[in-house]
């Protein structure tokens, strides 16, 4: 760039930085002063808050620390994934149950919302005029109504169902009443566990084989089929094992005793309403993300694929979707984060997630700061793990530029 052609490398080194002058006219010194001033201010405010809080806590005789986690909780929790007895178990375990409940809503909600959102997003691009208008109306309406309102609506709707005695019966043993949906659930046996283990091993074997097949394909051009191995390892082998065990599958079927059902699995009205509301609300956002992603793929890509003679399935899988995903994944990540954070609205309809359990805890023990700290840490951990996973996935699918 410089004018002289015989310039040597040593001349291109940046000039030595002038020493910082301790005067306000030096921008670097000014920056230092600003930073010290702002840090000092933040530090002072922090110190003041901690001091007054300690004084206030002393005044009100509120204990501090996490000792309360070992005390017996006595919070009744209706839906639990692991055994819990309110008479015996401690606050720590109640909070663990709350975390698991939040996790359950988050996982099921993310899966269902992604599926529904993708279907609706593709529906908006359909050449079918009716379908396109219908899905557009769905998206426009549901995005503009607060989630809390939708949750309350679904919850009240589910509570309006008939009591267990007049429950709707679906099929042989599904019952829909204002206590939720009761469904048959397999009785757990060790043999069943082994069978599930065999399925897991089958999936791993298939994945390893797929990798192997792909590297052989890349090296020699020989194509090896993946699906026979998959069917054999995931379906046939576990089924054979299951039959060898003597097919030990019995179901715990719900039955009406007195005023309520006993036995079977339960999908409570709280969880049902929360999932319905979250999935429907989030799917309207995900639909827009999917639509924008697919629309971002230039039309020439479709046409070029078609000109190469690719079948529609391969065209979608190999050309369009990989490019659309690059646009879709970053906003989808923040949508997943929103779904997890929105699941905290469970408290408004009485589903016992982490917010609900922790707030019951702090109203019983009076230790609000610790309670809120636990909730915040749990959500930060969730957010961080989703971000990390989605960043890893995004890096995997991102365009490698050469």
């Amino acid at each position, binding site marked *: 760039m410089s004018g002289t052609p015989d310039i040597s490398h040593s001349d291109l080194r940046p000039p030595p930085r002038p020493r910082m002058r301790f005067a306000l006219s030096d921008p670097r010194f000014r*920056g230092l002063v*600003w*930073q010290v001033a*702002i*840090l000092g201010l*933040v530090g002072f405010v922090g110190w003041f*808050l901690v001091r*007054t*809080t300690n*004084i*206030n*806590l002393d*005044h009100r005789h509120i204990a501090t620390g996490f000792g309360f986690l070992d005390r017996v909780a006595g919070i009744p929790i209706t839906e639990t994934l692991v055994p819990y007895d309110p008479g015996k178990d401690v606050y720590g375990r109640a909070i663990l149950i709350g975390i698991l409940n939040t996790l359950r809503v988050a996982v099921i909600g993310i899966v269902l919302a992604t599926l529904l959102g993708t279907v609706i997003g593709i529906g908006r691009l*359909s*050449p*079918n*005029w*009716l*379908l396109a208008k*219908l899905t557009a109306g769905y998206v*426009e*309406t549901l*995005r*503009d*109504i*607060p*989630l*809390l*309102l939708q949750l*309350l*609506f679904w919850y*009240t709707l589910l509570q*309006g169902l008939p009591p267990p005695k007049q429950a709707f019966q679906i099929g042989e043993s599904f019952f829909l009443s204002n206590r939720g949906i009761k469904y048959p659930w397999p009785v757990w046996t060790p043999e069943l566990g082994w069978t599930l283990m065999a399925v897991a091993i089958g999936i791993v074997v298939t994945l390893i084989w797929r990798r192997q097949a792909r590297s052989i394909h890349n090296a020699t051009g020989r194509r090896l089929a993946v699906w026979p191995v998959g069917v054999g390892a995931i379906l046939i082998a576990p089924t054979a094992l299951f039959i060898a065990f003597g097919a030990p599958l019995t179901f715990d079927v719900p039955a009406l005793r007195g005023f309520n059902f006993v036995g079977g699995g339960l999908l409570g009205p709280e969880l049902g309403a929360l999932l319905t509301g979250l999935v429907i609300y989030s799917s309207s956002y995900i639909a827009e993300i999917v639509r924008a992603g697919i629309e971002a793929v230039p039309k020439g890509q479709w046409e070029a694929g078609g000109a190469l003679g690719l079948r529609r399935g391969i065209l979608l899988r190999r050309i369009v979707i990989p490019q659309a995903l690059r646009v879709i994944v970053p906003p989808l990540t923040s949508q997943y*984060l929103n779904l997890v*954070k*929105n699941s*905290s*609205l469970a*408290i*408004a309809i009485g589903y016992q997630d982490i*917010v609900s359990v922790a*707030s019951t805890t*702090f109203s019983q023990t009076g230790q*609000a*700061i610790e309670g*809120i700290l636990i*909730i*915040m840490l749990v*959500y*930060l951990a969730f*957010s*961080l793990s989703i971000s990390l996973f989605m960043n890893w996935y995004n890096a995997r699918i991102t365009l490698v530029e050469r």
Partner: protein
Amino acid sequence: MSEITVPGVAPKGPIGKAVFWARANLFNSWLNTIITLVIIYGVVRLVPPVIQWAFLDSVWSAPDNSVCRAALGACWAFIGVWYRFILFGRFPYDEQWRPLLVCFIFIALLLMSCDRRFWNSWLMLIWVAGTAVIATLMWGGVLGMTFVETDLWNGLPLTLILAVFGLGFAFPLAILLALGRRSHMPAIRALSVGYIEFIRGVPLITVLFMASVMLPLFLPTGTTINKLLRAEVAFILFSAAYLAEVVRGGLQAVPKGQFEAADALGLSYRQKMQKIVLPQALTIAIPPLVNTFIGAFKDTSLVIVIGLFDLLNTANAALNDPAWRGYYVEAYVMISIIYFVFCFFMSRYSQHLEMSFNKGKRR
């Protein structure tokens, strides 16, 4: 795949055109034919019962609930009896013209702010004046109006106060945070990043809890802050983090040459940001900002968990009246329409702005 048009067989007459359109848009493949038939079947099964419920079998006005209990359809009479409570809550009944006027002032101010002709320094002054009028009308105590506690500011005015002032105060904070995040000073950058990421990582409910439960502990004994202010503070702190990220997006979209040109002119940091960078960054960021506003407007309904009576909570309170229990669909439909109108207007406005900003770039 693509349509083949044969000259000479163009459709003639309105019926011919309609048939042609339907064949092109509804029945152009066997899959689309199935989809169309399924949708038509669904519409035929669902829409008539809904119309029957909402309009034909419904009760539009009734002095008490007995007529509604007998009817099969919707009980819009519930809205007729309760709409003033749902809109204004426990504000003294005889003076509910005051919150009504406040709502109109809010709408007028917002509409004015939407028009680009008013985007100048006068707008700020008009907002200050409008805020003063709103405060006088809500509090009262002068000009023969009775004094009204903030506890009685319920319903739609509360929702608007939380949303508009929350965002209004969050916005300057957001600009500072966004500038801080892009600053070259490591301490300031770390503080901004920490704040933004922390707030964005936790749900609004926890921030509201913090404001309602922990704020009293933070302050010296004896000082009390009323509930509304606490919720407003939580709302400002929460929205600022989200707005800051949008503003940062706008700052990143400003070409580097603009910064360098400002530096070359010898402008100070303040002049550079105020005169060169921020006007461009904020213009770019307006459409996503409006989307964030929509989200924040809907999020005001969360104040229900700390016991404030916003639009949604007054409806819940009305539904708790034993005489009128069970008409939640009617109540929620009314609230949904109000939220929908505000949000729909904002999203259309954002689309309109995006179009007009892109006008210069289109060929």
